[in-house]
């Protein structure tokens, strides 16, 4: 039987009773990176079945459960409503976001006919900003029912939204193509990072609007900038990854892609976590002690 102790068990718990979201988010990304790396090494040496590929689709979710959800249960003050957010986002992603991105806009089919800057613009205005705005909207909508008390609450829910996007995207990818398991894990890592970046910018933008009483234009600017930077990372990654012709076997350089993606999520995590911490500290200074409960 689980219980909440009246007295804190350690000094650290008194100071920070919640799950550390930034850490778990990066752990998920890093784990996916390692898994993708391992499968690239193994290649096609092991026989894979279609069932194995469907199970691989659950990797982001499984890692979220391991690092985030179980961590949430172990925390002093666990967050609630994460499952609701997950299920709600699965529906939205499968019904709206993924079809818009891949059927209506069909961005991957024509984006590469443009120049480098135009590709960043297009990617930023589609593959990056639409999931970002959707995350923002879901958080605003769910905020009516779910108790978002801190900035990191938004981030935790944004994290699960990204996991949902990634899972649906991966399912569609598997159904439309016949990827090998190594390619599938590579794709899952790439899309998870893409949606993570979109989501953390959405969480940051909303948290500043709600908790820091920022200007009404702040979310637009933050989402816009974040999406363009996300687009830049993604286009840069595809440029580095793309096959360079040789006189024998010319294959994509996935290692650079992996490193660029991981570097992107880590960099954005570091920056946004710093900004959010500073904002929290500023807010703590502005708020008088008697208002603290």
């Amino acid at each position, binding site marked *: 039987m689980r219980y909440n102790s009246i007295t804190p068990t350690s000094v650290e718990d008194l100071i920070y009773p919640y799950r550390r979201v930034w850490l778990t988010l990066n752990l998920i990304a890093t784990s996916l990176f390692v898994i993708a790396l391992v499968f690239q090494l193994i290649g096609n040496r092991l026989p894979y079945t279609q069932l194995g590929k469907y199970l691989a689709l659950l990797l982001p979710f499984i890692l979220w459960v391991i690092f985030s959800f179980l961590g949430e249960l172990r925390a002093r003050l666990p967050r609630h409503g994460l499952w609701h957010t997950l299920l709600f986002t699965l529906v939205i992603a499968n019904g709206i976001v993924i079809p818009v991105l891949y059927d209506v806009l069909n961005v991957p089919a024509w984006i590469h006919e443009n120049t480098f800057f135009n590709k960043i613009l297009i990617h930023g205005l589609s593959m990056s900003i*639409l999931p970002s705005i959707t995350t923002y909207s879901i958080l605003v909508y769910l905020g009516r029912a779910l108790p978002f008390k801190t900035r990191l609450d938004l981030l935790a829910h944004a994290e699960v939204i990204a996991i949902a996007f990634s899972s649906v995207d991966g399912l569609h990818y598997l159904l439309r193509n016949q990827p090998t398991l190594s390619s599938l894990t590579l794709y899952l890592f790439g899309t998870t990072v893409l949606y993570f970046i979109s989501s953390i910018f959405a969480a940051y933008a909303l948290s500043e609007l709600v908790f820091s009483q920022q200007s009404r234009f702040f979310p637009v600017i933050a989402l816009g900038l974040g999406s363009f930077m996300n687009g830049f990372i993604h286009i840069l990654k595809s440029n580095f990854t793309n096959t360079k012709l040789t006189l024998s076997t010319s294959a994509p350089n996935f290692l650079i892609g992996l490193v660029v993606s991981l570097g992107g999520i880590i960099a954005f995590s570091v920056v946004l976590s710093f900004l959010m911490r500073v904002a929290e500290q500023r807010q703590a200074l502005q708020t008088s002690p008697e208002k603290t409960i």
Partner: protein
Amino acid sequence: MQVTDLRHNAFTDPTPGQRWGHILVGVLGVIALLTVLNLKNATLSRKTIYTNVEVGITALYPADWLLDEPTSSADYVFRVQNRHERGYPTTFQIASIPISGDSQARSILDLLTLQRSKTLAAYRTLLVEPYQFAEDQQGIRGLFTYVDTAENPFTQAIPSVVSGVDIVVSVGGRALVITFISEASNYDNNYTLFETFLEDLSF
């Protein structure tokens, strides 16, 4: 640790500024969607202009399609193909055939049928009907199909069913044969491109 005052929930009771913030994000989403749709349209409908003074035609064809202007005697004066499309490359082609005063467009179509039947497998003309060009020019339109086989016998290319349209119109002392050929499975999608091509064609 900082906890928000439950007496003021920004999500259930947002301030006007917060409300505007949400609305502006929504507007941003709409703008982004429309912008991308516009960019998509602009990318996919980029055109290149082609002019042939000798034959007297000006055409706009999709950018990055492969242009072939044969220098030696060939049965066409202009041909563009979509070479980044997998399968049979969608083709727009214009031939200029000298005709006598007694020649009719229908006889040109029949001649094409006879010639193509010799070299193209399973060539069939499906339909012949009048066709009205803009600017009161009457032509004739023939729908055909055949099976395209690979030229190189050393590859294992599967023959593909191909459909196409010939539009024959008499201009002065010659007949212009405007041909559209596409993989049959993608015919309808590509035909819209051909219609745009016809609209932009002048001779």
